[in-house]
């Protein structure tokens, strides 16, 4: 019926780990899939981190006409499944604009919107965690609002958001597997295809190990960043 690894009536027969040739070709395919995964990951971060800041500033605007639409946007992005957002961008937007998007482009757009919404709220929390007295001190020293933000608030904000951002970045690595739903062949899809072709779970576990390694590196880097900001307190 089902063949669990290492269990069951008979000893689970290995199909990749004992076959170097097959393993090599699997790894080559996984490597290609990893490329797609990493470009989705990279583009999403590249655009969503700054866009999140813009959204956060708009969300904190005194102008209701600016604040309310962003509030609604963040609600929808955080309140609906990412996979649904991917579908929407992939299938609905071409109907509206009349042109098909390239697969990666469409998926990146959906991911950027979703992640920017989360980052915006992290930034907003960070801004609020910087004491009001910092803004007041900047004000009485004659800084403009822009100078105060860039020189006084932003550096203290970054210290406060390192760990919450690391959570999102790690989640993003795993969320990339969702794009399988619109037929993109990335790391998880490659592993799943291989698994079902040969009837073995090994490719999936190998893919899992790859995700884990990526996230171990990311965790390490964020930990370093966090320690870097320990040079001051408050």
């Amino acid at each position, binding site marked *: 019926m089902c063949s669990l690894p290492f269990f069951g009536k008979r000893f689970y027969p290995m199909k990749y780990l004992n076959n170097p040739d097959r393993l090599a070709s699997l790894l080559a395919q996984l490597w290609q899939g990893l490329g797609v995964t990493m470009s989705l990951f990279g583009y999403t971060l590249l655009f969503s981190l700054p866009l999140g800041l813009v959204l956060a500033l708009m969300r904190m605007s005194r102008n209701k006409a600016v604040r309310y639409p962003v509030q609604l946007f963040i609600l929808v992005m955080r309140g609906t499944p990412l996979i649904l957002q991917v579908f929407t961008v992939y299938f609905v937007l071409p109907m509206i604009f009349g042109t098909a998007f390239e697969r990666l482009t469409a998926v990146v757009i959906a991911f950027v919107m979703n992640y920017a919404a989360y980052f915006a709220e992290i930034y907003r929390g960070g801004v609020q965690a910087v004491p009001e007295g910092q803004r007041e001190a900047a*004000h*009485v*020293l*004659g*800084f403009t609002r822009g100078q105060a933000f860039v*020189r006084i608030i932003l550096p*203290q904000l970054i210290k406060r958001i390192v760990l919450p951002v690391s959570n999102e970045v790690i989640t993003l690595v795993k969320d990339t597997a969702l794009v399988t739903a619109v037929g993109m062949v990335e790391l998880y899809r490659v592993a799943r295809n291989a698994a079902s072709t040969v009837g073995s779970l090994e490719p999936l576990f190998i893919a899992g190990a790859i995700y884990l390694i990526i996230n171990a590196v990311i965790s390490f880097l964020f930990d370093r960043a966090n320690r870097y900001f320990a*040079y*001051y307190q408050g």
Partner: protein
Amino acid sequence: MLSVENIYKRYADNKVLRGVSLKVNQGEVVAVIGPSGSGKSTLLRCLIDLERVDEGRIIVGGETLVDTQAQGYAEKTALRRIILKMGFVFQSFNLFPHFTVLKNVTEAQERVLKRGRQEARDYALQVLGKVGLSDKASEYPYMLSGGQQQRVAIARALAMDPQMLCFDEPTSALDPLLTQEVLRVIKGLAEENRTMLVVTHEMAFAREVADRVVYMQDGVVRCEGTPEEVFSHPEVLAFTSQTPQPE
């Protein structure tokens, strides 16, 4: 130097300032005393545009910060220019924690007054020397005691060459020992004939250092005059007798 005329300020139903007028002349040290909630700090915060008045007029060094009878608040650049005439020292110091002591004092000189790096640095070390902290220039605020932090905050204000200094309960966050080192610095500034407005709970200090004392209660100035006059006023006596005196 400073003229406050009939200012009103309320938060919702809470009328914090109900027609306060106050003058500070060039070279004068004015202490504002009064019970908590009397509006002293709000008054001070209105002078530097941290709070906005509902009514009244504030003139700083001949320039109008606000006149609700006329044009209201000054426009942005004028407002910044007027604010820069005053140095402000907060109760809670509000040093920039991510900057060293030196950078706390040079940053606004460079960014706001556009002084050169070397000039700002030299001047910062000079004012830090004045508050007795030139040896702490490369440390971060969290490494300092509260009294030292407040002295850095004073140096940071001095470095902007303000025409007048405002202190908002500068020692209320400090224990008695640290209070004295900060008060000594403020007293030293008073002896240089600087124009100062000090909101304080330190009665002995007000008595000793102020040229004039203003007693506020319930959002109005109840009496003002020389320290001798004010501290012998029956209402002030009633207030000061409630306050435990360190000396």
